[in-house]
């Protein structure tokens, strides 16, 4: 814990040297003398040399100071040596079959590397001395950490150090080579690296290749990202070098587990190295030493190539001390983008880890579902539940069945099997898919999920070719693609009747609040034009969707807008206790036919209620009314509810104001997230049964109990939008933009999703916006392209390495045009008997997605503190298991992270610090509930940016460049007061203006002459005709376009009141609400891991 608190800003890996110190100092820093820490760090850092040396120190503890120096010195030399070592490492890797072995050596190199970091000698020295010198808190902190760790590390250090270092080294090799060439002493790293690569690769490749990742390139990219920050130069070089290597051998495993950031603290530098190597090797990256080790890993793992690329970064780390030494999300993202963003991701191969969500890539469907539809926490599943338990890595898939695709990718083919309907396995009912095995000359097929042998119906019969494949395999999407759709037959329809086209019902609060804010007028005006853009299917000329209108305060007003009427008819239903729909004919109408009446109605609504004094509203009856209307019309549909206040009118679902901040941090805190009454759940169930999806737009001025109100949208697959203190002038654009998108987006209605798995695993838990009446069927009244369902799997039997594991997600839904369809997504995963394989094929972003949802659901039932502890524990277990089983033996003081999971701590920390799990004083109960439910159906990309916001400097990149500027890490340290930054997390968008931004820039962007004249809190940038203004506005627009919700811009000036708000999103820093800084948390995590290991 101390660690966390102490956490001073830690440099990113990029600056390896600083980092190391940083770690030690930081974590410990808080504590005592930097000296002590330093030593340990030293130990860490210099995995190799350091370790060796340090161990003793660590043991002694006292020596910190001395330790430090040694470290530094050691490092310096080592650094060089390290490089050399890297090279060696690589070599070792290559040759050494066993990871550990390699690692060991690697680790040593690392140690040396770090120190050595010949490149940044200066820095190193400081480190060494750090404790003493200004270097700083970071270093200090690092020192401290190390200190804490130190004791252990040292001892282990000796032993472990080497291994880890080796591993990392191996990884680094390639990278290092690259990197080396770049910034730092190219000489050492590069040369070494290069040398290594060449050698290593071949060797590695042989073994690793098996994995078959062809695209070494991809591996490469990642590495770069890692390195990027650190040593761009190197990275470049690295990549080239590494790639070759990779190509040759590793491709298969390209993914190389980014493994290991070994070096806990001292380690930072190592960390870097580890990472790089780590990737390749996959295993441990000890922070400091890691690098060294990595190489080793690399070798063991075929993945080496990828690592290689990653390794690039490693070189950098060594040099700096600061936070840059710890794994940087920015770096990882950047690397992946560079390495994997260029070539399409082809899904033909089982168990491939797709590029990160932040990477822009194309997908070619060759039999597995695109990662846009399904992402897994791991693409390599342990064969046994024991292994899975040991690893504690959740096995989960994040499924977005109706994900929208970029225009370059074709949407799933629709297959029509006529009256017989889709072909399915008789026993498990799985749908025909590419994995089904045709036998007996094509007369039968064996189900790939349950092994049942089924007859092929005559009309489906086709001969097999010599490979046992059906001759028509490539003519049939269901035999060749991962994702496709079937037209459903009447058997798949409710009541055995084909559904009628769905309907949209707009239900507008017309109580005093809604009228006063101008919301009703705005909304009615917008609806007039928006109704022309209802979703339509394919090339349909007009949407099949019918619309209806309801207004309400404490009574409901239905409108008859039948086309034959001269004027609309209003029907008031005041019997809110027992809701019903007063009319059938004329309520739901075709927009074009009834346009005149609708327009007249929308014109009149604001007038009719202009003088209202009614402040009370109802809620449950409104939804009930919509649901009943759909029921009466016998169709599915969606309600758009525009609501302003806590429903206190006498009616079912009446709510009390129960907001009580005193409950925070008590056992009763969970009640704040729970609905007040059961009425909402009951209603939601009825809605689901009817296929009635509810989208809720809230415009609260005060507490409205989002936790309760959002129950129905949540369970019906709807969305909640919240515009606190809505004012037309300020929030109009945001609201209208959200509304437009929400109305226009393609939705599937009345859906049922079922996830089938091959024998051995089973879907056991589901997260998202839906309802489940049994344990297998996910029922969604509505499902749009933004909604995601996260599914957790558990073993119920042994898996087979050869056959792997299959997932089939089948979604039965009604399209916008009222067509009943089945969308099928198939995904094949590998199975492994080695934990290392698991760790090498993980995806941290998905893991975080799962863990966040798990935790956010947990707060409903457990105290928040318990939830946080569970998360930390699980994370520690995951990492400890890795350390124990996969990382090469190294000092216990080394923090060794799997390459693929090296961002786990930073991301997890963001989750822990999030408003739901650790609310700040300014966060309202409603906000927490709102965020909680939002996250529940977020996809991986959304959670990624939500938890770790993007921070983009505006003036760094050349003004002509059209691409997004490279992001920087979310820490105040990264902000330069002479620059401006955009920060976005998918919900919020800030423009931070440094106090000493050039006047010209201010002028050209804000049209005012000086910084002081900029209006704080500004939400719109003036439209100015100059390149900078255009560029910034363009950038803002493009950011908004990437997100499913419109982000309202807030301009924040440095040193302004609003800055507090902004700083809340600098997630690597310590937060006001008590959230740990990245560095502190990392230290804490390390401590936890060590505890587990001991």
């Amino acid at each position, binding site marked *: 814990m101390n660690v966390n608190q102490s956490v001073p800003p830690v440099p990113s890996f990029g600056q390896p040297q600083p980092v190391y110190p940083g770690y030690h100092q930081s974590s410990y820093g808080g504590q005592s003398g930097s000296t002590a820490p330093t030593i340990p760090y030293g130990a860490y850092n210099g995995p190799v040399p350091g370790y060796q040396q340090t161990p003793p120190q660590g043991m002694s503890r006292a020596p910190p100071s001395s330790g430090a120096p040694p470290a530094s010195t050691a490092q310096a030399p080592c650094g060089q040596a390290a490089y050399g070592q890297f090279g060696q490492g690589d070599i070792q890797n290559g040759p050494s079959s066993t990871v550990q072995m390699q690692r060991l050596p690697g680790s040593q190199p690392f140690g040396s590397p770090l120190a050595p970091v010949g490149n940044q000698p200066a820095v190193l020295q400081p480190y060494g001395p750090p404790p003493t010198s200004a270097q700083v808190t970071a270093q200090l902190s690092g020192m401290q950490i190390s200190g804490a760790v130190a004791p252990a590390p040292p001892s282990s250090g000796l032993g472990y150090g080497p291994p880890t270092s080796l591993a990392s080294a191996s990884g680094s090799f390639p990278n290092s080579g690259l990197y080396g060439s770049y910034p730092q002493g190219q000489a050492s790293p590069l040369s070494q690296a290069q040398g290594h690569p060449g050698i290593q690769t071949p060797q590695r490749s042989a073994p690793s290749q098996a994995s078959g990742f062809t695209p070494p390139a991809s591996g490469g990219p990642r590495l770069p990202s890692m390195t990027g920050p650190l040593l761009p130069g190197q990275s470049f070089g690295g990549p080239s070098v590494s790639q070759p290597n990779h190509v040759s051998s590793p491709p298969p495993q390209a993914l190389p587990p980014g493994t290991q950031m070994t070096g806990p603290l001292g380690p930072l530098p190592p960390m870097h190295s580890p990472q790089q190597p780590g990737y390749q090797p996959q295993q441990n990256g000890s922070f400091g030493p890691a690098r060294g080790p990595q190489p080793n890993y690399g070798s063991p793992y075929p993945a080496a190539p990828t690592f290689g690329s990653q390794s690039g970064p490693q070189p950098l780390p060594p040099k700096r001390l600061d936070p840059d030494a710890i794994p940087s999300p920015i770096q990882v993202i950047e690397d992946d983008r560079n390495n994997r963003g260029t070539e399409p991701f082809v899904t033909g191969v089982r168990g491939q880890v797709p590029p990160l969500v932040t990477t822009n890539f194309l997908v070619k469907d060759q039999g597995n579902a695109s990662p846009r539809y399904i992402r897994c926490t791991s693409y390599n599943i342990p064969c046994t539940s024991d292994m899975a338990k040991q690893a504690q890595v959740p096995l989960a898939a994040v499924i977005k069945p109706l994900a929208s695709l970029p225009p370059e990718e074709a949407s799933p083919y629709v297959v029509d099997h006529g009256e017989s309907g889709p072909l399915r396995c008789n026993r498990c009912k799985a749908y025909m898919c590419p994995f089904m095995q045709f036998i007996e000359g094509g007369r039968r097929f064996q189900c790939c999920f349950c092994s049942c042998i089924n007859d092929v119906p005559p009309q489906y019969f086709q001969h097999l070719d010599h490979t046992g494949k059906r001759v028509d395999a490539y003519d049939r999407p269901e035999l060749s693609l991962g994702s496709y759709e079937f037209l459903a037959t009447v058997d798949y329809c409710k009541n055995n009747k084909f559904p009628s086209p769905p309907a949209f019902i707009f239900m507008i609060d017309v109580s005093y609040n809604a009228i006063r804010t101008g919301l009703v007028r705005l909304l009615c005006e917008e609806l007039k034009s928006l109704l022309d853009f209802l979703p339509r299917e394919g090339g349909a000329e007009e949407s099949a969707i019918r619309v209806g209108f309801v207004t309400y305060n404490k009574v409901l007003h239905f409108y008859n807008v039948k086309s034959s009427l001269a004027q609309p*008819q*209003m*029907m008031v239903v005041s019997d809110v206790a027992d809701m019903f729909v007063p009319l059938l004919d004329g309520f739901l109408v075709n927009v074009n036919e009834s346009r005149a009446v609708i327009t*007249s109605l929308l014109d009149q609504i604001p007038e009719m209620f202009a003088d209202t004094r009614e402040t009370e509203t109802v809620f449950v009856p409104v939804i009930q009314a919509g649901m009943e209307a759909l029921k009466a019309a016998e169709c599915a549909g969606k309600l758009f509810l525009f609501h302003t206040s806590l429903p206190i009118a006498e009616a079912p679902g009446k709510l009390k104001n129960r907001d009580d901040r005193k409950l925070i941090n008590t056992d009763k805190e969970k009640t704040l997230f729970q609905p007040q009454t059961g009425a909402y759940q009951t209603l939601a169930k009825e809605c689901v049964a009817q296929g009635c999806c509810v989208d809720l737009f809230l415009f609260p001025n005060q507490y409205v109990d989002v936790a309760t109100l959002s129950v129905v949208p949540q369970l019906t697959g709807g969305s909640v939008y919240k515009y606190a203190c809505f004012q037309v002038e300020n929030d109009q654009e945001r609201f209208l933009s959200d509304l437009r998108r929400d109305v226009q987006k393609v939705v599937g209605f009345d859906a049922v999703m079922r996830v089938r798995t091959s024998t051995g695993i089973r879907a056991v838990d589901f997260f998202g916006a839906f309802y489940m009446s049994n344990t297998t069927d996910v029922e969604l009244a509505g499902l749009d392209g933004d909604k995601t369902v996260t599914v957790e799997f558990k073993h119920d039997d042994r898996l087979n390495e050869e056959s792997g594991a299959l997932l089939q997600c089948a979604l039965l839904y009604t399209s916008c045009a009222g067509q009943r369809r089945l969308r099928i997504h198939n995904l094949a995963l590998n199975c492994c008997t080695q934990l290392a394989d698991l760790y090498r094929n993980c995806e941290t972003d998905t893991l975080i997605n799962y863990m966040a949802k798990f935790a956010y659901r947990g707060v409903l039932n457990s105290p928040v503190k318990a939830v946080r502890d569970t998360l930390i524990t699980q994370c520690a277990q995951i990492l400890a298991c890795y350390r124990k089983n996969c990382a090469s033996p190294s000092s216990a003081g080394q923090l060794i992270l799997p390459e693929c999971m090296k961002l786990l701590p930073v991301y997890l920390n963001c989750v822990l610090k999030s408003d739901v799990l650790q609310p700040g004083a300014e966060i309202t109960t409603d906000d927490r509930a709102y965020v909680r439910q939002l996250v529940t159906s977020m996809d991986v990309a959304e959670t990624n940016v939500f938890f770790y916001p993007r921070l983009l400097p505006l003036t760094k990149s050349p003004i002509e460049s059209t691409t997004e500027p490279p992001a920087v890490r979310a820490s105040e340290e990264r902000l330069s007061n002479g620059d401006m930054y955009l920060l976005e997390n998918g919900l919020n968008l800030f423009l931070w203006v440094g106090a000493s931004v050039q006047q010209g820039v201010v002028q050209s962007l804000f049209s005012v002459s000086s910084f002081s004249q900029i209006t704080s809190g500004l939400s719109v940038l003036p439209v100015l005709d100059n390149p900078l203004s255009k560029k910034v506005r363009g950038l803002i627009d493009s950011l908004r376009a990437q997100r499913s919700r419109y982000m309202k811009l807030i301009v924040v000036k440095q040193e302004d009141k609003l800055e507090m708000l902004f700083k809340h999103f600098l997630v690597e820093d310590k937060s006001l609400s008590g959230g740990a800084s990245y560095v502190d948390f990392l230290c804490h995590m390390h401590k936890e891991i060590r505890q587990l290991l001991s």
Partner: protein
Amino acid sequence: MATYLEFIQQNEERDGVRFSWNVWPSSRLEATRMVVPLACLLTPLKERPDLPPVQYEPVLCSRPTCKAVLNPLCQVDYRAKLWACNFCFQRNQFPPAYGGISEVNQPAELMPQFSTIEYMIQRGAQSPLIFLYVVDTCLEEDDLQALKESLQMSLSLLPPDALVGLITFGRMVQVHELSCEGISKSYVFRGTKDLTAKQIQDMLGLTKPAMPMQQARPVQPQEHPFASTRFLQPVHKIDMNLTDLLGELQRDPWPVTQGKRPLRSTGVALSIAVGLLEGTFPNTGARIMLFTGGPPTQGPGMVVGDELKIPIRSWHDIEKDNARFMKKATKHYEMLANRTAANGHCIDIYACALDQTGLLEMKCCANLTGGYMVMGDSFNTSLFKQTFQRIFTKDFNGDFRMAFGATLDVKTSRELKIAGAIGPCVSLNVKGPCVSENELGVGGTSQWKICGLDPTSTLGIYFEVVNQHNAPIPQGGRGAIQFVTHYQHSSTQRRIRVTTIARNWADVQSQLRHIEAAFDQEAAAVLMARLGVFRAESEEGPDVLRWLDRQLIRLCQKFGQYNKEDPTSFRLSDSFSLYPQFMFHLRRSPFLQVFNNSPDESSYYRHHFARQDLTQSLIMIQPILYSYSFHGPPEPVLLDSSSILADRILLMDTFFQIVIYLGETIAQWRKAGYQDMPEYENFKHLLQAPLDDAQEILQARFPMPRYINTEHGGSQARFLLSKVNPSQTHNNLYAWGQETGAPILTDDVSLQVFMDHLKKLAVSSAC
């Protein structure tokens, strides 16, 4: 006798009163031996063109329990300016305004010819009449169209300041707001849920008289006391709106699947109508006019389920206790009727459908509130259209022939007590010294409420003589009864009509002749019939018949002249001679016989029987038959099968039906087209004569009777054949093959047989 007949007629014309006995037996014991109770038929608002209302208020007896109105029977001391109440003998001071009173300067109410007098009360705010249309939309298209037109037409007939409201119902119930521009607005209620008046008013936003509005414009509510009732608006303000609204009225849009009845929420619609008026205009004249085209099929008051395969209850089901919904529905409508009555509103039911519409269950709504009940086959018939139109006819003063919210207060001199009343009224439960413990009809009170009445509404009021045998009334003593009717005239004035009558007491022993002679057998028949029908509502048919028979036999025993055990010697005096015949036809009437009638029809017939005046009632009991022939002018003939002759045209008026029946020969002639030949113009005239007469009856009758034009052998001839006395049937062969009359295929006994039996029983000493 002539004198008594004249007396009776005169009294009826002046006071609208017909007593069963016009000389009263002076003791309780003897009165009970008279068999037919002392009772009267009172037509409270009998039209008196010659009686202009006086413009002041009545003078009341000051005794709080009496409060009788000053009348010609009171003794007046002109010098002391005192008058003695003739009911309680309280001496009262005349009010100051009567200061100038003297023998030669009498106020109208003291003049004998003003035994009935009408006072106009100027006090109190006048509230407009209210007409609330409750319209079923589950109709066939043309039916609905016809109804819409009728309703639109009716707007032009209403007084311009009358308030109108519109409620439509089908599966849902919609209360229409009438003063909306640009958008038509209505409040909708679920048709399956009963709501309390409070809930209804809450939901219609009536309880808080638009609080915001008050805040905004605090003065207005006072200026417009009715501003808050958006649902009831003056005709002149919204007739265009309402006409459009009615024009746009659509059939109930909810789909009705094959084999189902439309869901019709009559019960809730009525409940809402009642609740709406209850909340907004209690105790002012209002008509709720229910137009329905079928039985209520859901919610409270449902009469039959929506499954067509299960038919609506029949008498058979009711006897077998198989009518599932009847009790509950009846209870619902009774509750509504009582509430409505308490508010002084009335409910009309216009039910037009080929099948039953649940009048049996709903009858109390009209019965208890004095509303109309109209039954027809379709809204698209002249029967409905003209009946409906006739509701809005005006009298010689240009006022509607309707009055609202009446209370009838009956006061008797102390030898008499009030046993009860039968008619379109509810008890106000006012106990008093003149209320008898024995109830006949609606008893236990001296006041009744009649929420809606018209000039022909007639109540049967039953009395009990309580004078003890041992306290004889002195010779020449007179008993008095005063009927005080407070009501709201259709011109919205409050009025009071006071009728005071007196009759001589007579000692039965010594003056039986007088009493006999003063027997009004027509009134007695109707009054007994009302009692019988009243009993029939709650008792088994056969019991009622037995009771009637016993009464008849006892009457014959009492007043017949005969030798014991010698039926042939039996004679009845003239004043009793027709009575048995009335009873014979009454026994066969649809009021007591349910065979061949649906429960709805029975209810319909009984409803009208209980409110029509004596003449109409007699027609109902014993239809009138006129015969047209070349032999002379039209003549009334016996309601007997022997009157059905080949060369006659018969016109029968049963009140509910007008039947024109062409005898066999006439029919053949007509078929041959003689009426079109110039030389047979007299035949043409003969054919035309009954048509003209029928038109005359049709014009005057409310509700419009069913008009049936048939001929010998025509299927509709059954209406005639079922009514005539079956003197010739296939059973009594002696008439068979003869020229006269037509045999009726029935096993019913003929009048002759009936009389024979009666005589036998009357002279038998066994009873």
